[in-house]
């Protein structure tokens, strides 16, 4: 089936005419560029269980620093530079292997940490939603309790009314019984009189 994309885009633009608040979103330019982060905090000074924000920052730092590269700045002094190059070359056969193993480990670790962070974010979202549902249910429960109390009060009032009506009914029934008794007596008298 053929579609007219231009017509669809025109329809979209027309839809916007009815909405005058579309520019209300804050601009990205209003958000400053964060200052470079300090070096990661040494493990022994980190809290045992960082706050969610602290944990996210640690994971961000891991994403930034996990990959090691076999390169470092050499001295500007030509003689030192020659020695440094020589040492770098001599150690390369050993270090590059170690570095690869370390990178492999770091890569798995940072992926696992990202996975954990994702799961924490999911669970936090679920927990927030659950907390929202709990609050809604708590409000509903309070409302139901109010309604129950009102109904209960009304029930007692109605019970009193019913009891009073029952008492009145009892009197009426008694009155009717008395009348019936009197009618029967009159009927007897009438028959005896014949």
């Amino acid at each position, binding site marked *: *089936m*053929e*579609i007219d*994309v231009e017509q*669809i*885009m025109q*329809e*979209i*633009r027309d*839809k*916007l005419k009815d*909405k005058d608040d*579309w520019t209300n*979103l*804050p601009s*990205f330019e*209003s*958000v*400053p*560029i*964060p200052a*470079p*982060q300090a070096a990661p905090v040494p493990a022994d000074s980190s809290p045992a269980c960082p706050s969610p924000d602290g944990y996210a920052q640690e*994971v*961000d*730092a891991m*994403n*930034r620093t*996990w990959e090691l590269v*076999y390169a470092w700045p050499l001295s500007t002094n030509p003689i030192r530079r020659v020695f440094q190059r020589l040492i770098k070359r001599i150690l390369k056969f050993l270090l*590059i292997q170690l*570095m*690869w193993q370390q*990178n492999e480990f770091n*890569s798995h670790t*940072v*992926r696992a940490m*990202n*996975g954990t*962070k*994702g799961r924490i*974010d*999911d669970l936090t*979202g679920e927990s927030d939603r659950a907390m929202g549902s709990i609050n809604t249910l708590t409000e509903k429960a309070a409302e139901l309790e109010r309604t129950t109390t009102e109904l209960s009060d009304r029930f007692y009032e109605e019970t009193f009314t019913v009891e009073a009506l029952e008492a009145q009914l009892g009197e009426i029934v008694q009155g009717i019984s008395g009348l019936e008794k009197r009618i029967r007596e009159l009927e007897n008298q009438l028959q005896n009189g014949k």
Partner: protein
Amino acid sequence: MRVVQIVPNLSRGDAVGNNCCAIDDILKRAGYDAEIYSLVPVQSPELKEFARPLKTLKKLEKNDILLYHMATAIQHNITRYGGRRVFQYHNITPPEFFQAYDTPTAAACRAGINEMQSLRNAPEACWADSEFNKNDLIEAGYRCPIRTIPILIPFEDYEKPADRRIIETYRDDFVNFLFVGRVAPNKAHEDVIRAFAWYQKNINSRSRLFLVGNTSLTSYCGRLREYIRVLDIQNVIIPGHIRFSEILAYYRAADVFLSMSRHEGFCVPLLEAMFFGIPIVARNTTAIPYTLGNAGLLLEDNNPAIAALAVDRVIQDRTFRETLIKRQNARLADFSHEKVKRMILEELKSFE
């Protein structure tokens, strides 16, 4: 015939590296004597068998082909190796995008562009990933024949199993937006977030945004996180460095692919979205219209409301969505492994 590929840095998961290995594979299968040389020593053991260090490359014979993958500055005189030089140009991001966030990257981009311009007379032929890249080369003064040959993508990798937990968590009644690509300023993640914010606030609060990609540029990433907080939106997921199976899972959980990128040389994730049958809404910039062809819905600017309403239209209008996906499938066929392989082999045959 001998074909030597030179790549700045061969690594898995990177479009240029994957393309280089895929070309090596088809060349070997076609009977060429193929080799890869990497400027930066290859670290990964699985790739070590593919590439040798560039410093070990000896001068080539007159008829040997040197295929140089131009994607950054290598500060290395590749003309000294002789042979018949072919450049595959993957584009270099303009430095202005990085200036405020990462000056070394901005400097590297600047050096790359200077190097690209200075090498304009070096190749006998050029391959460009897209028409956009081709125009870039022409503007830089390249006068040799330039052919557009897309990146060779191993699509069979996308058939691998996706992470079940992610699919199970996110496949629900929420509308899932997806953008895949390195978290970098040229990709304009802030515009994706802004469009998503408009959608969540005005159209559907039951929505999520997945921003999948490398998050090593922390100054930009931090600013995005702060922007998300300022906008007061929920369910924006930035998973960072993750497994390939997890990337596949985010594709499988997505309802729409939204790109607001301002600079792309090709944009492989568009083809990935096509592969997974996800409708694409993308800003009409640089190589994006060339890669999309007439598939996908193109936006003329970064207006968040129009982007959000376009996404809503794609989600709500089933006929429109199916037509888009149908067009995307047809476009994807243009980038099939067989088709690109044929183009590469034809091109190399012309050198014989």
